[in-house]
């Protein structure tokens, strides 16, 4: 895997260190970049994200990375907010925004909504079980019922692009997939051996 180059897109949000360290534990060719050429030249790309959808989209636009990400042909893995940025739009928006939603990258049709969990607590924080649709691609060797670490209050419903689902007051997409774009709502970099297995699967796609 030494020749494969993985680039973590520097979205400008805090805390990409944990993703970087997790990838470095699996590969010796990992870099963090916001350079279009370097991103396009990578074999594998990670789109991390912490914070809010509107702030992250502002930052991606400010760095002129929108078209670059949308036109990537190699495997891209969106993590947590990075996954949410891959769909059409998100209900998470700036308070002063005139629009009802934040337009996202739209590489996978779909929308992010605030979770409806009844009396349960939000954020949905902690280890929860995930049910992959099959034992292929990034979920190879990861059986249904495997725990991953989640921290989020917004989610995508279960629909045709759901690759794995999870339950917390409602069913939601724990993972999405369309073409070369993959997304996980949980944090594989913080999900112990299960997360490392998923990241390794992504690197060997």
């Amino acid at each position: 895997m030494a020749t494969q180059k993985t680039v973590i897109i520097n979205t400008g949000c805090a805390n990409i260190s944990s993703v970087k360290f997790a990838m470095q534990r699996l590969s010796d060719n990992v870099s963090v970049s916001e350079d279009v050429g370097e991103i396009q030249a990578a074999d594998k790309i990670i789109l991390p994200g912490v914070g809010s959808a509107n702030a992250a989209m502002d930052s991606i636009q400010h760095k002129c990375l929108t078209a670059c990400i949308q036109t990537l042909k190699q495997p891209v893995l969106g993590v947590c907010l990075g996954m949410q940025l891959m769909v059409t739009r998100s209900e998470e928006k700036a308070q002063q925004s005139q629009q009802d939603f934040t337009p996202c990258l739209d590489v996978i049709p779909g929308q992010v909504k605030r979770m409806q969990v009844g009396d349960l607590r939000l954020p949905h924080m902690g280890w929860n079980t995930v049910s992959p649709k099959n034992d292929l691609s990034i979920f190879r060797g990861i059986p249904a019922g495997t725990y991953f670490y989640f921290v989020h209050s917004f989610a995508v419903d279960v629909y045709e692009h759901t690759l794995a689902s999870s339950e917390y007051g409602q069913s939601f997409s724990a993972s999405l997939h369309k073409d070369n774009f993959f997304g996980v709502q949980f944090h594989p970099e913080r999900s112990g051996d299960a997360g490392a297995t998923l990241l390794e699967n992504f690197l060997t796609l």
Partner: protein
Amino acid sequence: MLARRIIPCLDVRDGKVVKGVKFRNHEIIGDIVPLAEQYALQGADELVFYDITASSDQRVVDKSWVSRIAEVIDIPFCVAGGIKSVADAGRILEMGADKISVNSPALENPELITQLHDTFGQQCVVVGIDSYFNEKSGQYEVYQFTGDEKRTQNTGRLTADWVAEVQQRGAGEIVLNCMNQDGVRQGYDIEQLTNIRQACSVPLIASGGAGEKHHFYDVFKQADVDGALAASVFHKGIIPIPELKDFLRAQGVVIRDDFRRKSA
């Protein structure tokens, strides 16, 4: 199902893990990174590192240990102690911590919670509350500067009021440390935690008092907390984490199953 979390807490002073009784008489337990790795391997769901000197000392505290932990640990961890500003928090998060926890500085300046929420998002912001039962007034009250006995003081705030305010300001999680119970291993303060649970719509972590396996069962079952934090029972090997998790599973508590990587 979302699992209940078992959270070892490592009190850190000068880059070493220490533990005192009722916040006093700290003794050195060991180096941070190997201890953290050991806990992750044993099945801890999350780790909390409390820099106990930081809030009560004026000096700048070396936090380089945060990135040393982040390099090797693949479970979430939170750093507490000495975070007085958005810039302080940003540095800790950049070094790879998943969450930051504020306690005394938030009491001095509650606006800090709002700023942290607006800058980093609710999921990063944990508020630690040191709550002490005042027998005279019959009320739970919030204390600050509990890392230093000489400076520890009653803030005059009722715990319930502060719990409400920190949520309204954007806290994503609350760690309620019941000081009467801390370090004495007589069980969590179920009564207080049950009360606070009803007023807490974000994740609530119980802290202070764990001494036996059934104390964890009691606090999950009766107080419905999301996680249980403990220090001495883990550091001293009184309760091995795998044994605790097996016990809780057998009692019907939802606990994360280990997943072992095939290749590596």
